[in-house]
């Protein structure tokens, strides 16, 4: 690792830090985090634009704004984009940027693998997104139920892009997950015990395990589908007697933990924001950790609650129902502990704090409607209706997106050295908050009043007209809110108020170094004695009469020193990983290799072989060059 390597090697590192090539070749977790952030925000805008078109088509009964085929592509890509290309990578942006800083490390365990994860994500994302420009985007829903997605019923290339794209994106997620697990286990600073880790790192830690356990089932499901579509196997071929529920089980064994993969990082982010702006430690740290682990664990035992209408039988329905209800308990504990964190605190209504409070308020609604679905007979009236659409948008928008925005406003000063504009931030928050409720609350009504999901049009006078119109207005409001945010995000990079190393009075290690952090993060690897090292430093009176911030750390003055000066790694003699484009090249090889399959659809066997073998050669060659070159 960096800290152990001979300083003599460090002088050889090229110091280029600007220009396109420096980004392609970067192995710095902070720059990769920044790449994730920008890319994921771009996909967030694309997914949002798709939602805008969807809502425009549904504004009034029997609209002809888009065709049925286009609509089906739009809702498929809206879901696929938001889940795989926006929310997960936004979380990954924070994993990348924050985990090494929060645990006092100089980088992730495998910096080049980290770059590889990003490039696979970017290229896979482009691969799956571009077809919509040519009206051949995936159109089987983000859930891709067989047998609709088999060649018999979807003979075009649409589903090919989806199945290959998701397979590729899975590689990115898995590589990143192993990387972060290794990082968290091995690279924590001295004294940073597991139970002193910041809550964001803890929730991220849980999420990485969910990723490595949840992605294999969907990988298997996708390999089956891929082989059915290209090589004539019959995993989902109904004429050969396939049971289509095979896909559903495999998909939801992944799909339900995926929900927690999307929400737990947001829970982690608000668990950083709430204590900071309440000036109080997180209430019930241990319980917050255990409930996070509990949610992740139970999350693997509830998948079939997505399938109460498929006819599994009364016993299976009952078991999955009870398991689902159990999850409400650790989730509820988190809600109450967050409120208790603010109780008797000194609550400052900054923009990140507003988003964090909004998460508590909105996620609660999604949680309550979730308990309503957990009861199978009631769910039979709700599933595949707009009530479910309302439910999971309260979870994913009211939860994940609110938490991610809280994180962006909170950490933007750390990442860029400048604040996001507070006034624009407030405009964004309120438009977002009102827009979200205007969009999604009416869907509770239209769903319980009988409106099915995934329909591109509906007749007038069904009792749904008003709710649909309101939802469409809400979406337009969200579009304005997002425009305000983008303006703020871009403008504040150069015009924002300068932020110091610790602009919010926060407690954890990432705030003990300058903003933006130097390439080496910590000039001196800190020694940690409690969960809130910076507060120990700045509010030593809190030690009097009590244990140091809730754990058994050494009482007394903190050994931590705030770093305010930025040097170069070279000047400090800290060896850094070489910049290298080999991971990006390897990622390109992976995507090229898979995309060769597309040509099989048109019986271009020679072309397919050429592209696939060419891609494989790039992948193997890139890997060889990468693995045989020194890290630093």
């Amino acid at each position, binding site marked *: 690792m960096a800290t152990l390597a001979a300083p003599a090697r460090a002088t050889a590192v090229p110091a280029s830090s600007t220009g396109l090539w420096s980004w392609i070749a970067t192995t710095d977790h902070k720059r990769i985090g920044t790449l994730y952030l920008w890319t994921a925000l771009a996909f967030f805008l694309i997914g949002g634009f798709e939602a805008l078109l969807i809502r425009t088509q549904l504004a009034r009964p029997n609209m002809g704004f888009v065709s049925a085929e286009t609509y089906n592509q739009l809702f498929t890509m809206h879901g696929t984009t938001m889940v795989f290309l926006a929310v997960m990578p936004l979380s990954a942006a924070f994993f990348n940027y924050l985990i090494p800083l929060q645990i006092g490390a100089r980088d992730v365990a495998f910096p080049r693998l980290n770059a590889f994860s990003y490039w696979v994500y970017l290229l896979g994302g482009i691969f799956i997104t571009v077809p919509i420009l040519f009206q051949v985007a995936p159109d089987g829903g983000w859930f891709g139920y067989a047998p609709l997605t088999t060649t018999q019923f979807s003979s075009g290339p649409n589903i090919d892009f989806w199945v290959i794209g998701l397979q590729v994106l899975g590689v990115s997620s898995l590589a990143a997950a192993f990387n972060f697990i290794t990082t968290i286990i091995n690279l924590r600073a001295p004294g940073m015990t597991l139970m002193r880790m910041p809550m964001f790192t803890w929730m991220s830690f849980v999420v990485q395990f969910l990723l490595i356990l949840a992605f294999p089932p969907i990988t298997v499901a996708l390999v089956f589908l891929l082989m059915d579509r290209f090589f004539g196997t019959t995993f989902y071929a109904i004429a050969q007697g396939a049971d*289509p529920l095979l896909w559903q089980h495999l998909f939801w064994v992944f799909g339900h933990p995926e929900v927690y993969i999307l929400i737990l990082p947001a829970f982690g982010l608000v668990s950083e924001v709430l204590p900071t702006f309440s000036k109080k430690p997180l209430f019930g740290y241990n319980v917050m950790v255990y409930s996070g682990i509990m949610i992740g664990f139970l999350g693997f035992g509830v998948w079939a609650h997505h399938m109460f209408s498929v006819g599994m039988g009364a016993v299976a329905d009952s078991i999955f129902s009870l398991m689902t209800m159990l999850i409400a308990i650790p989730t509820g504990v988190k809600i109450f502990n967050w409120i208790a964190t603010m109780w008797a605190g000194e609550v400052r209504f900054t923009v990140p704090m507003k988003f964090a409070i909004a998460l508590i308020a909105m996620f609660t609604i999604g949680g309550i409607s979730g308990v309503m679905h957990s009861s199978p007979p009631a769910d039979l009236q709700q599933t595949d209706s707009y009530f479910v659409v309302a439910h999971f948008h309260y979870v994913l928008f009211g939860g994940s997106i609110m938490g991610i925005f809280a994180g962006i406003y909170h950490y933007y000063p750390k990442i860029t050295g400048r604040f996001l504009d507070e006034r624009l931030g407030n405009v964004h928050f309120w438009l977002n908050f009102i827009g979200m409720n205007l969009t999604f609350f009416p869907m509770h009504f239209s769903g319980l009043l009988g409106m*099915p999901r995934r329909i591109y049009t509906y007749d007038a006078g069904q009792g749904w007209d008003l709710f649909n119109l309101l939802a469409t207005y809400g979406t337009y409001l969200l579009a304005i809110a997002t425009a305000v945010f983008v303006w703020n995000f871009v403008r504040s990079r150069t015009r924002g108020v300068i932020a110091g190393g610790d602009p919010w009075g926060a407690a954890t290690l990432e705030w003990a170094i300058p903003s933006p952090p130097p390439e080496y993060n910590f000039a001196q690897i800190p020694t940690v004695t409690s969960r809130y090292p910076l507060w120990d430093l700045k509010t030593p009176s809190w030690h009097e009469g009590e244990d140091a911030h809730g754990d058994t750390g050494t009482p007394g003055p903190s050994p931590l020193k705030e770093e305010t000066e930025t040097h170069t790694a070279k000047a400090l003699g800290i060896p850094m990983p070489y910049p290298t484009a080999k991971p990006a090249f390897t990622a390109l090889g992976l995507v090229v290799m898979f995309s060769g399959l597309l040509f099989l659809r048109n019986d271009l066997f020679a072309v397919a072989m050429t592209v696939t073998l060419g891609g494989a050669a790039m992948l193997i060659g890139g890997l060889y060059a990468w693995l045989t070159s020194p890290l630093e």
Partner: protein
Amino acid sequence: MPKLSLRHAAPSALAAVALLALAGCGFTEYPNSTFNHHTDFNTAIDALFQRLLFWGTIVFVVVEVALVYTIIKYRKRPGGPKPRPIHGHAALEITWTVIPALILVLIAIPTVKTIFQTQADAPAGALKVQVIGHQWWWEFRYPELGVVTANELYVPVGRTVEFELTTKDVLHSFWIPQMGGKRDLITNKTNYLWFTPNADLGTSAWNGFCTEYCGSSHANMKFRLYTVQPDEFAAWATHQASPAVFSAAPAPAPTTPVTPVAQVTGADSAAAPAPTTGYVFPRERLETEFPHVLPQTPIPAGLTFDDALLAGGDPVRGATEGFMLGGCIGCHAISGVPGAVSEIGPNLTHIASRHTIAGGLYKNDAPTLARWIKNARHMKPGSLMNTIGRGEYDPILKMTNTGGLDDRQIADVVAYLLALK
């Protein structure tokens, strides 16, 4: 700058919850509402939902009030008390673990009871209906009564009806919101769903939907349910079970080797010359009392038909010429017509007795039917029905149909089909 982010949001959300309860009451305004007690099935579901809504509302109020109270009371103020490092409180945390757990027990017990109650075998004597999903229409068979029909279900009130759900292609889901929950149609599997419409339920019409995404025209896969009185049902079923007869039937052309128009034969065929139309849910009642059940889909632009020809359509020529030349017989069965036995498309034996066509997408009248036959794929995205009109552009094959029928021949077929009462 507003300081209290949720002060206004919480009451409005509460008002919305109250509105939700009200929404259950309206019938005419909310014709597909799930809050009603028209069947035993939905009575059980609604009882459960009301309990969920009750506890959900309490949890919602407690959490949001605690949240809003906390952020108001402990907002940063000059001279306010300084926060102290409180790390947790075991008794409190146990309390807010145990209370939700108890609430969940109160939900779980009736949930499991209702699961077993609603998924039990249907009571003996239930009317059996086979529901077969197709992209994108519904086939309904009454095996005990010998009835095969499409997109429109008749069910007598006061008697349990058991649906046997299967699909010929992809997954679909069978949902009549006013009658109860939905059940999926799974390929290579048979599912069951049963309910009993209340005996005091008047003769009424209800909307049904496909609620599992099934491809291009998922939105266009609808059906209608008519709950009718037992005598009306008997009349309907008897007629539907009889072979096709059309009232304007002159003798078929003697040179035709096959007789396209079946004559009712058998011992009790006294009514053959003037066939009864049995019972059909009255169109006027749909228009006045159940307008939400009538399809509203506008016919897409770009499809023309010479409607003047419809008045002169010849049903016999339609039967002998158009129905054969157009290839209709390749997919559609008409009971009593030799050779017309295919089960690919909807059974047309009594198509004129239906109020809708095309998976409930369009009204069943001559101008619409004519355009539908001429170019179904232009009227319904992805439709598997071939383009019949000569010179019509087929949006799926992406080519112009050089064979097929001209407008006059289509008018004949329409006249034939609309005679199949």
